[in-house]
């Protein structure tokens, strides 16, 4: 049961992240995902300081406001502050993350939050936490978020699709770009905050970016893109945890490394195949 809860938690996080990540990647906003995953830290620490517990549902919803707050500042600095897009992302998320770290080491120093698990979370403690309906609290919360995310993506597929592919066309049809943009960012922020405690900041980016990128090099149809993205994330989590147990190394970075390794090997394989095909073609032409 112990490993089951760990794998289940990781898989739910993978589902949320890869669904939302698909659209972030297609919108070339991967680095906004990066920024989100770091910027929510002060929100989480403040929520913890107020409520005194890490997994309070409504506090975490509030904390995700920090993600949106960061996006708004990045946008504002980029548009009116005279910073380049990359620079404004780089400045804002490092500042918020630094503030988060300062809060942890100074004010919240006697708490369960510690600096090291900020990066890769503490998924191994999930099964030991208090339970709701026999499900550990963070897993339960994540399940609720997963239902919301999946339903929103299913019903809003057209909106996400059209506002991602061609903003100006969508706008001329009367579709609100701002609405779909902030719906995506808001959900991403919430999903990041709820995943943070289990898998940490760096892994959230990995789960947001790597599965969609894998889908991107495999398929060219949006529906398949989403399915492949999610399955890749889920399968990687299951295999990753097994490898981690077998080699006695931490689960979360193992999943991250495994996903990247599969992606890179696939790319290498594709390149070889392309070169080989070209060579055989050239041979045939010669003959």
């Amino acid at each position, binding site marked *: 049961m112990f490993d089951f809860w760990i794998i289940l938690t990781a898989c739910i996080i993978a589902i949320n992240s890869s669904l939302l990540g698909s659209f972030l990647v297609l919108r070339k906003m991967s680095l906004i995902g990066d920024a989100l995953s770091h910027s929510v830290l002060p929100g989480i620490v403040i929520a913890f300081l107020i409520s005194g517990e890490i997994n309070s549902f409504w506090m975490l919803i509030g904390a995700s406001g920090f993600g949106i707050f960061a996006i708004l500042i990045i946008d504002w600095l980029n548009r009116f502050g005279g910073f380049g897009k990359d620079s404004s992302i780089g400045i804002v998320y490092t500042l918020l993350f630094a503030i988060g770290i300062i809060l942890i080491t100074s004010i919240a120093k006697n708490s369960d939050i510690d600096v090291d698990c900020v990066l890769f979370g503490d998924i191994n403690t999930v099964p030991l936490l208090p339970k709701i309906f026999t499900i550990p609290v963070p897993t339960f919360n994540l399940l609720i978020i997963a239902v919301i995310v999946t339903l929103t993506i299913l019903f809003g597929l057209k909106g996400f699709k059209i506002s991602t592919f061609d903003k100006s066309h969508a706008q001329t049809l009367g579709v609100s770009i701002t609405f779909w943009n902030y719906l995506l960012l808001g959900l991403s922020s919430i999903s990041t905050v709820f995943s943070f405690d289990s898998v940490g900041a760096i892994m959230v*980016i990995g789960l947001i970016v790597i599965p969609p990128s894998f889908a991107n090099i495999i398929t060219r149809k949006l529906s398949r893109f989403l399915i492949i993205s999610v399955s890749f994330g889920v399968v990687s989590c299951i295999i990753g945890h097994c490898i981690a147990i077998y080699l006695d190394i931490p689960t979360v970075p193992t999943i991250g490394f495994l996903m990247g390794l599969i992606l890179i090997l696939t790319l290498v394989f594709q390149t070889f195949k392309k070169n080989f095909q070209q060579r055989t073609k050239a041979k045939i032409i010669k003959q």
Partner: protein
Amino acid sequence: MDFWSDFLYFFSFADTNINNVLIGTSVLGFTCGIVSVLVVLSKKALIVDAISHAVLPGICIGFMFTGVKNPIYLSIGGMAAGAVAVYLVDWISRISRIKKDASIAISLSVLFSLGVILLNIIQHSGNSNQSGLTDFLFGKAATIIQSDLYLFGAVFIFVILTLLIFYQHLKIALFDAGFAKTIGLSEKLTQGLISGLVIISTAVGIQTVGIILMSALLISPASAALFWTNNFKKAILISGLFATLSSVLGVFVSFLSADMPTGPWIIVVLSCFALFSAFLSKKGVITKKIRAKIDASYNLKEKEN
């Protein structure tokens, strides 16, 4: 008063330990401030993030090979891993339809994951030297000792020399890429130089602010400096000064209270400089608004007359 006695003690430079930390962070700050101008002008801001995260596995491998925490070996490992990151980002976006932003994020999380796995293996290996490797994550300015200073000094001199030798080349390539192409300056050399300098300054810079916040030290100083001047030379100087000043203030804050971490405070101060510059410099938002208002009222008066 307590604060003033602390203040005086700190800035009397009587304590050699504090002096080492101050000199170390200042030199590193200045180095990164210089490189930062190249980063921001070449719009490489976010590749820096991939490079700094990639340094972790490099450091671990450097340690695993040598078994000691010699900063030179660790830095060499870090630099090699940084180069791998640059190559990986470029390779992924070149051979597939994965866009540059995604390939940055992919390289970052893969290499950092590898780093954490290696770190974990080292921690369980029983090597008693290993304690303190995790400090690279958030910086360990307080532990800078005199022998570290030689490495920092060497890197500083190397960066300055490279900059002096290629000064004209970089200046033209960064301010007018089109012109640089027409007079035959190698694009590859420009990119290589900048990436190289970023990798070198990152590999040592993480000692003060740590891996996660390193990118700020290579983005914010120049972002702030470029609000005050368009002159390349001045931008480099101002950027270096901003970074140095933030480092000193960061060290000072953490000296005041044992709970206050140095690296994050350096970044907070630095970001404040950047935001402050964005609002209040000659080219700043608020300044522009005020000037527009003054102009408008002036025009109005002229019309009345």
